[in-house]
Structures are given as C-alpha cells and as structure tokens.
C-alpha cells in the first residue's frame, strides 16, 4: 500500500475480529504454558498477565501532553506516553523490589505507592513550571467543568489552544495511573522472582543464596522488558496526547486490555521457558 492510499486511523473504533484473535492468542499461550510448566510456571504467567493489564490500563490515566504541552498549547505533562509510563512504572518497580522480602501484598502496595508518588511529584512540579515559569493557568479543553472540583474551565482556556497546564482531574488521574503502573510492574517482578528462586537452584545445581543475583537480575530485566512493551503498546493505543480519565480517548481502554494481556502472555511464556526447558 502506498503512503497516499493509506486510510486515516480509525481512532476509537474497535476491530472485533482482531480482538477475537487477540483473546484466542492469549488462551493458546496460556495452554502452551500449562503444557510446559503446569504448576509454578502457569501461576507466574497468570500473575504476569494481571500485571501487564494493570500497566496497560493504568497508563490511560496519565495526563500526557507531548510537544504541544511544552509550548503551552495542550494540557498534560510535556513528554510522550512511553516515557511517562516507564518513569512511573520503573520508580514503582524499584520501590516494590526493595520490599520484596516483606511478602507479596506489602511489596505490591509499596510498588503502587512508589509509582503514585513519582507521578504526584512530577505533576506538581510540572504545574509549578506552568504557573510560575510560563505564566499560564491550568485549564482543560476537553470538558466544560472539572469532574472532581466542578470548576469551570472555558474562561481560563486561551483561544486556539486545546487547554493548558494540569487541571486537578489530570493530577488525580496521573497519581492513579502511577499507582496502577507501579503495582503492575511489581507483580511481574515478584512472580518471576518467586519462579526463578524455586527453579534456578535445580537447573543450575547451586544453592538459593548463590543464584539470588541471577534470579533478581533476570526477573528485573524481564520485568523492565515487559513494562516497556506494555507501555509502548498503550502509547500506540492513545496515539499522541490524553488529558486523563475524563478524556474521550480514555474509552479506548478495552483494546489496550486485550493487547496488553496477549503481549504479556507472549513475553511471560518466554520468561517461563527459560527455566522450564
């Protein structure tokens, strides 16, 4: 197909056939995992899929402004979806990894808090720069009233822009997105760490204490890889900028759930195979 003949992107439309293929792919990959490693491996894979879906869903909450936001012509944080998701998620993952010895629940909550904190600090400083540095007020271009505070937006919005700054609802969305992303990344890490701690001593014929560096490093690298895959797939779903949970683009999340689940299952299966083979 030539570039000129290419149709414009369908935007928010769903493609039912492709969604079906995605779900079937997910089931096939789960079946393959059950075939090679029915116990521990399958449990880990299910955890990885949950983590991946949390990352994909959570990223939709994050207010992403891209280049227009840097010029004060669109609301949100002035960088791309993939960068913000990776920043929040990896901050959460580092937090969760520190708490890994305290048990799954504590570690996942710590990861979520880490990611949420990262986004809260980012959103606050972004607003500082917008308000005190660039001299622009926070105003949404997508809604008439802020869904949480009820403040009207239109009077503050400059003509010819889609809004600017970071309205309160976007701030809250950013923190929720950070919490979900950080928790998702931590779940993936913990699942893989438990799997490797249980299986690597047998395959490498060493004690658990000896293989710990390898287990931590492998689980960490796989978690980072899956995190980036899920974050970029979500970025492709959003294509460009999103203001937060009140943005019409937020309604595209079902597509992202299917894509993230299938992609996480694929990458997770590879991560399980490294010890199951």
């Amino acid at each position: 197909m030539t570039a000129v003949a290419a149709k414009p992107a369908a935007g928010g439309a769903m493609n039912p056939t492709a969604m079906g293929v995605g779900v079937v792919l997910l089931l096939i990959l789960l079946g393959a995992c059950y075939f090679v490693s029915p116990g521990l491996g399958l449990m880990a894979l299910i955890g990885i899929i949950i983590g991946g879906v949390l990352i994909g869903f959570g990223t939709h909450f994050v207010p992403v402004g891209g280049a227009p936001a840097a010029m004060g012509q669109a609301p949100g944080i002035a960088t791309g979806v993939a960068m913000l998701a990776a920043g929040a998620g990896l901050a959460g993952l580092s937090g969760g990894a520190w708490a890994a010895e305290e048990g799954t629940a504590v570690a996942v909550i710590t990861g979520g808090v880490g990611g949420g904190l990262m986004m809260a600090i980012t959103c606050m400083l972004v607003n500082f720069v917008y308000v005190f540095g660039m001299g622009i007020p926070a105003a949404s271009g997508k809604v008439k009233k802020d869904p949480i505070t009820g403040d009207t937006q239109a009077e503050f919005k400059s003509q010819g822009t889609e809004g600017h700054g970071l309205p309160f609802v976007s701030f809250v969305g950013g923190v929720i997105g950070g919490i979900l992303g950080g928790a998702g990344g931590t779940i993936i890490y913990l699942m893989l760490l438990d799997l490797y701690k249980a299986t690597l001593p047998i395959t490498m014929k060493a004690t658990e204490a000896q293989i710990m560096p390898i287990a931590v490093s492998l689980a960490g690298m796989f978690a980072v890889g899956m995190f980036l895959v899920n974050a970029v797939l979500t970025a492709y779903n959003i294509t460009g900028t999103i203001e937060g949970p009140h943005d019409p683009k937020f309604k595209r999340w079902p597509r992202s759930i299917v894509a993230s689940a299938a992609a996480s299952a694929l990458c997770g299966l590879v991560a399980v195979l490294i010890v199951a083979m």
Partner: protein
Amino acid sequence: MTVKVEVVEGGVPHKKILAAGVIVSLVCLYLSYLNVMTNTMLYSFFGGLAVVAALYWGSHTIKVLCSYGIGTGVPSAGMISFGSGVIAMLLATKFGVAAPVVALVLAAVIGFILGYLSNEVLNMKIPAMVQALTELAVVGAFTLMGFAVLITGRFTFTELTTGSVSFLGGLATLPSYQVSFIGGCAIAVAFMLGALAIQHPFNACLGPGWTQDRMLMLTAECGFLSMIVGAVMSFALIPAGAALISLIVALIGWGYTYMKYFELSKRDAAAWLDAKPIPDVEGQ
C-alpha cells in the same frame, strides 16, 4: 495519523540495509565464537561490531516506521525494540552455539505478534508497522547479544551467568554468579546503551533536511560510542589485553565516524561558521 510525511528519496533501499544488517550482525556474532575455538578472549570486539551493524539497520527501520507520524515520539520505537529484544535474547542464550540464530527467529516471532497486536487490535493501521516491529525486535536481541559478547566474550547462558573471583593476588579463583553479565546486571547498562543509540539518530536528523547517509553515519557514531563504554566495562570480566583491543577498535571507529558525520553535517547545512567558543578580544 497515517499520512506519510516523508519518503525515502534516492539512497540505499531499505531492503539492502535490512539484508546487510542481518548478515553482518550474524557473521560478527559467530566470528566471536573464535574465542571458544582458540580458548582466548581476543575476538570479543566482534560483539561490538555486531552491535554497530544491528543499530545501523535498526535506525533505518525506525526511519521507515516513524515517517508515518505514529504520534508517540521516536523514542517509543527504540523502547519497544529493546523491551521485546531483551526477552528473546535471554531465552536464546540457552541454546548454546545456535543462540544468534534462535535469537533471530524468536525475536522475529515476538515482534510479528506485537506488530499484529498494535496494527489490528489497537487499530494503528500503519502499512509498515508489522514488518518494522519484527525487525526492531531482532535488532534489540542482536544488539544485546553483541554487548554480551563484547563484555564477556561468550553468548551462552552458562557463561553469561557464571564468573569467577580471584583473590590472594590471582593465586586462587572461586566461581561466582555475581561477577557476570547477567548476575552483575551489566545487561541493564547494555540495555540503556543500545536503546539510546538506536533512538537518537532519527530523532536528531528528522525533518525536511533529512539525508540517509548523514543519519546512518550518526548511527554508526552512536554505536561506536556505546561500544567504548561496553569495552571499558569489559575490563571487569575479560583479560585486560582483550578488553584493550575492543577499546582501541571502538575508539578508532568512533573517531572515524565522528569526523565523517561532521563532514556530512557541514555538507547538508545551509551555511556554517567556524565560530570559536570564546572570541579573541582585539588588542590583546
């Protein structure tokens, strides 16, 4: 979103760069197997050359993909390339001497499925998407495997996870899992070195004045720059002589490509002035 803003005019067609990238990377990775055959580490620098070849090909793939205006920024393509590549590369290292070929096949499968998911499920509808994500996953896997060879001299899972610590002035050695490419998490540094080198060239050169040879020269320059860091890291894991060879190769490559890139930048610039950092004050 899918209106292509630029086309490749003139220059080397993408298929040629693709073929050259795959072949040169694979050959370089297998040439490093001379290390095992001769029981030395002297041929580790072939890993670094594989990195440069893979990045050279990858940055042109990013150009093909991102000239459609995917709306997510050029760096996202580098991120998904290495995110999917690291997963394929880690499993491939389990296959012993077949590792590079397995990495090629496995990364292509992962990249193809991710391309299908983004094009159909996420409705991107970009003609080059599936092929580009397939290629990028292979580029990510090859680059990381190249760094593994550069830093440790080997590409098999056992060798990448097992190192040795010497004490008493080298009189005795103990096996250690911590002093290794994966156990010491050198792979994380390699990941970022590669990801930065692949996303930078097109991001820096895009626009109406884009020329193919200038972007590719910048890619080679970034690749050799990453190779310098990799070669410095390799002093920890391979004998100093072998690491020095890698470092010298990297420095020569970087110096040459940097000069060439400078020349090409001057060629493409509308005008340039050789300004001095601090102007001379008259009368002194």
